């Protein structure tokens, strides 16, 4: 009996100890070292990534963290300053080009002059031919490059895409002069040319759908080049010693550790094993309370950085299905009924800013219009609009089955029940959701979706997501299947304008679309949330590419 009692106590102690360990969440002891000075140059910057890069080949790289690598290693004709938005980081500026291009009177021909003295990381000179080659290589059918989407209006591009020509007739290079002729006026062309697909590449780079490997000196005329890439392990960027431009190249080396889970990234940043990393969204509130927001604690503790992104999350309202077909009143009712604050809360603390418009806040063409309630639901207005319009009151809601997908859907289900719409939620894998949803005839009424910019122009949001002219049998992006001749015409007209009239037109279009037709129900513009170690002395975020500008970060 005595022995049994002691054994029971021992077992209880072990179990209790494990429970204490599970609840053990006291913060790491703070480093009381003095705040160090911000080191400008030198050192190795360590960055953790959750997943591997898709490619380092400019023709193929499309993941956002792959573009972060391209940003540090490439030179493009046009780019953005390595600065925050408020310091001018959203303005298109010449990079390898001497100046912004001369545009012909008909608006279809762009003439660039490439600066002399730019070199690839192997010392070879960069000329106009390298940019022409990049474009033509992107168009090769064998490459299957995602860049083709953004080149279809280049004269002669179709012939290359169809395998009938090797080069596009509209792309001509001679010495340091590059001329690009388009088949139609496209005022967003300059914004498109800032994409990493069009960085200079050596003309002997093979047309290989497997992409280039490391060392990638022949694709790097920026401050760094990819010197090593061991897939699923590590990518290393080293200084391009031939780079003499004005872009910052602060760290001596940038090492990206691949495949690190978000919770491990957080611990590694806090312990100093790495310099830049993420964290599980559920930890955002704790980190905010611990480190404050956007306060650099160089030398003493990590810093929690939050920056707005050109990304928004929204509900597609399917106009192909009976519920929302020719039913603008119900679509507007949904926008009044949804509880945007509660939906945003499902993304975690500081996840973003509530919105009721298509264009992201601060984006070219955005103008705040105050259309729908951002502080909660307005059931009175929603019910007034929905009265007699619910057409049976049943709806099918497709969402994705991870992170905030199910919980946002449940919030919306609750909200819409208040206006007489009873939604059945179907959670699907994200890829399956968009593939099935992108097939014409899909049997959903509402679909939870997100969209991020490819390049900073309102066409990339409004026309791409809502123009009925792009609807096809499958692989659709306009998942509201919104197709109104009146609105299609307005979108087409706005796309033909140049700034500043362009942005004014899109601002009005954004407001009118949401106020009158409401083909979607936007609710948040997301933030990028990053944790940087106490070694990081300066931090810069690119508003144009939605990534940290690694070459501009400095470590002690």
């Amino acid at each position, binding site marked *: 009996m005595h022995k049994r009692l002691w054994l029971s106590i021992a077992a209880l102690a072990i179990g209790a100890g494990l429970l204490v360990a599970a609840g053990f969440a006291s913060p790491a002891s703070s480093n009381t070292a003095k705040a160090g000075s911000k080191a400008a140059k030198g050192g190795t910057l360590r960055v953790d990534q959750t997943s591997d890069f898709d*490619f380092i080949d400019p023709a193929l790289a499309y993941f956002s963290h792959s573009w972060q690598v391209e940003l540090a290693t490439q030179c493009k004709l046009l780019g953005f300053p390595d600065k925050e938005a408020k310091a001018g980081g959203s303005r298109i500026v010449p990079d390898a080009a001497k100046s912004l291009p001369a545009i012909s009177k008909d608006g279809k021909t762009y003439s660039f002059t490439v600066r002399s003295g730019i070199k690839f990381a192997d010392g070879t000179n960069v000329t106009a031919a390298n940019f022409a080659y990049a474009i033509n290589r992107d168009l090769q059918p064998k490459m*299957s490059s995602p860049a*083709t989407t953004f080149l279809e209006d280049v004269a002669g591009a179709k012939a290359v895409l169809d395998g009938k020509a090797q080069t596009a007739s509209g792309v001509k290079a001679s010495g340091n002069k590059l001329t690009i002729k388009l088949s139609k006026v496209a005022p967003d062309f300059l914004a498109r040319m800032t994409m990493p697909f069009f960085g200079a590449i050596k003309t002997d780079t093979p047309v290989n759908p497997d992409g280039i490997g490391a060392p990638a000196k022949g694709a790097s005329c920026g401050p760094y080049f990819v010197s090593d890439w*061991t*897939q699923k392990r590590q990518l290393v960027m080293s200084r391009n010693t031939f780079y003499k431009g004005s872009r910052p190249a602060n760290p001596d080396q940038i090492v990206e550790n691949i495949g690190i889970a978000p919770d491990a990234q957080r611990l590694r940043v806090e312990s100093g094993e790495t310099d830049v990393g993420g964290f599980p969204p559920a930890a955002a509130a704790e980190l905010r309370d611990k480190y404050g927001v956007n306060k650099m604690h160089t030398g003493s503790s990590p810093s929690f950085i939050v920056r707005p992104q050109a990304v928004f999350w929204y509900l597609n309202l399917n106009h192909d299905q009976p519920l929302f077909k020719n039913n603008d009143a119900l679509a507007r009712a949904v926008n009044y009924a949804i509880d945007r604050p509660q939906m945003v809360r499902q993304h975690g603390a500081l996840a973003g800013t509530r919105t009721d418009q298509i264009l992201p806040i601060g984006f070219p063409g955005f103008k705040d219009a105050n259309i729908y309630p951002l502080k909660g639901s307005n059931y009175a207005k929603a019910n007034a609009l929905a009265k007699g319009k619910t057409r049976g009151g049943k709806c099918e809601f497709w969402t994705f089955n991870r992170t905030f997908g199910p919980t946002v859907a449940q919030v919306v289900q609750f909200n819409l029940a208040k206006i007489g719409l009873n939604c059945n939620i179907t959670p699907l894998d994200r890829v*399956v959701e968009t593939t099935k949803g992108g097939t014409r005839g899909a049997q959903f009424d509402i679909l939870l979706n997100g969209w991020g910019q490819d390049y900073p122009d309102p066409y990339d949001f409004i026309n791409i997501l809502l123009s009925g002219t792009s609807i096809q049998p499958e692989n659709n992006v306009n998942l509201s299947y919104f197709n109104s001749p009146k609105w299609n015409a307005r979108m087409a007209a706005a796309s033909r304008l140049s700034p500043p009239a362009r942005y004014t037109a899109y601002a009005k279009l954004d407001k009118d679309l949401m106020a009158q037709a409401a083909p979607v129900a936007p609710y948040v513009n997301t933030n990028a949330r990053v944790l940087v170690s106490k070694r990081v002395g300066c931090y810069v975020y690119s508003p144009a590419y939605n990534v940290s500008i690694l070459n501009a970060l400095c470590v002690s």
Partner: protein
Amino acid sequence: MFRYLIRRLLWAAVLFLVITLVTYVIFFIIPANPAKLNCGQRATPTCIRNAEKTLGLDKPVYVQYAKFLERLVVHQNLGKSFSTRQSVNGIVGNAAPVTASLVFGGAILWMLIALPVGILSALRPRSLLDRTSMVFVLIGISAHPVWIGLILSYLVGFKLGWTPITGYCDFINPATDCGGPVQWAWHLILPWITFAILFAALYVRMVRANVMEASNEDYVRTARAKGAPEHIVIRSHILRNALLPVVTMLGMDIGVALGGAIFTESIFSLPGLGKTALDSITTFDLTVTQGIVVFATFAIIIFNLLVDLLYAVIDPRIRLT
């Protein structure tokens, strides 16, 4: 023995065909197009068409499967990743040693725990050691490896700083800036413990039960009655019979685990087969998924065969026919 081997190999080939075919069918039932994923969020029909041609997805499913078999059998080539277009042979070849490091190291650790604890528990039933080991078994079986891994990573790696929080270093020919036997072992300490705990608990129970059962057999009573020293009785009579099932289970568990210790690899960011399989499934990368399935199938088949052959060697009563 020869006929037995031939029969097993033929069955293995049938099993392999069935498993790979099922994987293909499941993949193509799921409504996701890898070619569209290649072309990005604004995929055009032209880009998708070209990508389908590049990836070989423009052919009927049965043609794709036939090409896969031909590539594998004739050229020993698992194809190229849909997402990254890297060689799947290379992807599996890089990931397999990581998983092997985890599994074999973990197996040694769990046997080093399970054998002495299980044997001593069985020889001293209801003692303090026995009861303590049963508590350990209960905890080891109940606690999920993910939870154990997170706790160890946080307490030992982060709070105490005794080991790295995550990561992997190669034993030889390091691919990154850390490598060598010492770094390799240091980075695997926590993953080995995490991986081993569940199996150690299960094996303690199994060894204890087998030893207790063997201790009560007539031949053991006879050996003792004839005056054999206790250590001879334990070694030559009890353990020899009690550990036979352990050999079987060990081979099967290692074979299955070589397919990918997903939980442990995910928690500790080990770039092994489990994590690679998880990544490939979420990105709908059929060729990589299929490559890992092929490897895992071979591993299980080979290890099961080795176990059966070893069993026949250890126990002369077993005849393979």
